[in-house]
C-alpha cells in the first residue's frame, strides 16, 4: 500500500509535468493549427540554458533565463518558419516542425555530448517523510509548481484579453481578425508561452530522482505527445487529463516492473504509447477532443 501511494504521488507529479508540455502543445495547435513536433526540442533548449547558466548567475535567475530563452526560440520558430509557410496544408506544416526539431535536437545533443548536466535546483535529493510514505521533495515541488502554473494559465486563458483573443482565434481565425484580434501576435504569443511551459517542464524532468539533463531527455519528452493526443488535441482539459493518465501509468508500470517482468524490460517507457493507442481505438479524437464535423 505504501509503495502504491508513493508511486501514485510520483505519477501525479510526473503527470503534472507532462501536462505542462501537453498544454503548450495544445495551445500551439489551438492558435495556429500546427502540430508542433519540435516541442521536445523547445524543452531541450530551456533545460540546456538553465544547466549552462545556473553556476554563474544562480538557480532562480538561470530558470528565468531558461524560460525566456525557450519562449524566444518558440516565438522565433513561429516568426521565421510557421508564418512564412502559411499557404500549405497543415500536415505539411507539421513536417516543417519536424525539420526544425531535427536541427535543434542535433545541435543541442551535440553540445551536451555524453555529459549529464546538473540543473542546480535548491531541492537536491531531500526526501519528505509522511508517515511511512517517502516522497522526494523535488517531486512535491514539481507537483505544486505545475499545478499553480496550470491554474494561473487557465485563469488567464479564461479572463484576460490575451486569453479571449486566443480563444477567439481558435474558434474562428478570420472572424477574430475582423474583430481586431492580431493573429500574428496571438500565434507568436502561443508559441512563446508554449516554449516557457516546456522549459519549466524541462526543469522538473531533469531533477531528482533523474540524474540530470542528458541527451535522452527528448525521448522522455516524447511521452507528452501521447498525453496531448489522448486528451484531445484541441482541449486544455484534455491535456491535463492526458498528462495525469500518462504520468500515473508510467509510474505504476515502472514501479511494479518486477511483477510485470514477464512482459519484458522497459515496459514503463512504452506503457504511455500503449494506453494512447487503446484510447484512440475507442475515441479517435481523444477523450475531450471535439470530433471534426464538416459541412459539404
Amino acid at each position: 500500500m505504501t509503495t502504491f501511494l508513493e508511486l501514485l504521488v510520483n505519477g501525479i507529479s510526473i503527470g503534472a509535468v507532462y501536462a505542462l508540455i501537453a498544454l503548450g502543445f495544445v495551445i500551439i495547435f489551438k492558435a495556429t493549427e500546427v502540430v508542433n513536433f519540435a516541442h521536445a526540442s523547445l524543452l531541450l533548449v530551456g533545460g540546456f540554458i538553465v544547466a549552462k547558466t545556473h553556476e554563474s548567475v544562480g538557480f532562480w535567475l538561470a530558470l528565468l533565463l531558461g524560460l525566456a530563452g525557450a519562449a524566444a526560440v518558440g516565438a522565433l520558430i513561429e516568426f521565421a518558419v510557421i508564418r512564412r509557410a502559411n499557404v500549405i496544408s497543415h500536415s505539411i506544416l507539421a513536417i516543417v516542425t519536424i525539420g526544425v526539431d531535427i536541427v535543434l535536437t542535433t545541435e543541442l545533443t551535440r553540445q551536451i555530448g555524453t555529459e549529464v548536466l546538473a540543473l542546480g535546483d535548491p531541492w537536491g535529493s531531500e526526501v519528505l517523510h509522511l508517515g511511512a510514505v517517502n516522497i522526494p521533495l523535488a517531486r512535491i515541488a514539481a507537483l505544486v509548481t505545475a499545478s499553480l502554473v496550470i491554474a494561473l494559465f487557465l485563469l488567464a486563458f479564461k479572463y484576460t484579453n490575451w486569453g479571449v483573443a486566443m480563444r477567439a482565434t481558435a474558434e474562428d481565425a478570420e472572424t477574430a481578425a475582423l474583430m481586431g484580434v492580431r493573429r500574428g501576435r496571438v500565434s507568436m504569443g502561443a508559441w512563446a508561452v508554449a516554449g516557457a511551459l516546456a522549459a519549466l517542464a524541462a526543469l522538473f524532468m531533469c531533477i531528482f530522482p533523474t540524474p540530470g539533463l542528458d541527451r535522452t531527455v527528448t525521448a522522455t519528452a516524447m511521452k507528452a505527445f501521447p498525453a496531448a493526443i489522448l486528451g484531445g488535441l484541441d482541449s486544455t482539459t484534455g491535456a491535463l487529463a492526458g498528462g495525469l493518465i500518462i504520468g500515473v501509468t508510467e509510474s505504476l508500470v515502472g514501479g511494479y516492473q518486477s511483477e510485470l517482468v514477464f512482459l519484458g524490460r522497459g515496459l514503463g517507457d512504452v506503457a504511455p504509447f500503449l494506453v494512447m493507442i487503446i484510447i484512440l481505438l475507442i475515441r479517435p479524437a481523444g477523450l475531450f477532443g471535439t470530433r471534426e464535423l464538416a459541412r459539404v
Partner: protein
Amino acid sequence: MSRSTILWSAALAAAALVIPFYLDASWLQDGLFAMAAAIGAIGLNLLTGATGQLSMGHAFFLAVGAFGYVYFASEPQEGGAHALGGLGLPTPLAAVLAVLLAGVAGGLFSPIAARLKGAYLGIATLALIFIGQFAMTNATPVTGGHNGRPVPPMELFGFVFADTPEAPLVIAGVPFGALERLWFLGAILLLGAGLFARGVLRGRPGRAMNTIRDHEIAAGVMGVPVSRYRAGVFVLSSMYGGLAGVLVALVFQQTVPDYFGLLLALAYLAMIIIGGLGSVAGAVIGAVFVSMLPRLLTRYSDALPLIVQPGQEGVGAAEAAQILYGLAVVVVVLFLPGGLLGLITQLRLRTGRPLPAAAPKHSLTPTPETRN
C-alpha cells in the same frame, strides 16, 4: 513514353550497370543504402505524399522486414541463454515472407490507420517506433536483443550474394564481392518497386488516393471506399518498408534494433519532403539526397568550413548532415513547394524544353480549400 523519358531511363540504366565496375566498396555500400532508402521512401510517399496520411512509424516496418528476413532465413542456434530462433527457410522465400510480414504488421495497425487523421495518426504511428524498440530489445530469441544478429546472405538459384573467397567471381577484371553483387539485386528491386508504385499512382487507385488527400468527404461522395483505401495504402506502404528493411539487412550483414529508431523515421519523412511529395521520382531523389549527404560531407570535410574530422571537437559530418537535411526540410517547404523534383520541373520550364507528358500531373501543393 516520351523520348526524353526513354533517354533518361537509358542513361540511368547504363549508369547503374557501370558503377560497380568503377566505384570502391564504401561508395557502393552507400549507394545500396540509398537504394534501400529509395524503396522505403517510395512506400512512404504513397502513404504520406499521395494519400495525405502522416506516418512517423515507417522505421518500424523496416525493422519488421529486416528482422523477419533474419528470422525466417537463419538456422536456429542452440546456446543456453543466447539461443537464437530461426526457421532456416530458403533465403528468397524468407525475403518474400518478410515483406508479407511487414504487410501483416501494417494490416494489424489498420483499425488505427483507417480511422485516425492528420496529427492523430502521426502520433499514433510514433507509438509504433517505441513499441517496436521495446519488442526488439525484449524478443531476444528472434532479434538477438541489443546487439542484433548476423544476417544470412541471400542465395538465388545457387548464386550467393556474399563474398566468396574460395570461388572468387571476377568480371572484366573487377572482383565481384558481396556489395557488387547486391548492387544489381538492389537496382532490380528498386526498379520493380518504382514501376509498381508508378502503376499504382497513375491508375485508378492513384486517383482515388489523391482524392482522399485533397478532400476526404468528396472522395467518399464520389464512391471511393475511403477507410478501405486508407488501410490498403497503409499495408502497401508497410510492405515497401519491409522490402527496404530486407535490403538494409543484407547490406549491413548485421541487424541492430537501435538503427530502426525515431531518427530513421524522421529521415524518411525528410526524404519525401525534400524530394517531392506524391511521386516516385521525388521519393528517389530525396532518398539519394538524404542518404548520400553524410557520405559527401565526410568525404569533403577537410575542404568544407565548420565540419571537423571524426574524433575532433566540433560539428562532425554525420551531425552536419542531419542539421543540413533538417534545414533542407524547412527551406523546401518555405520556398520549393514541389521539392527538388518540382525544382527540376521548373528549371525545365524556364529553359523552354518540352515537358514529359506526366510531369505536371500531380499537383504538389494542395489548394487552400483542401487544408484539413
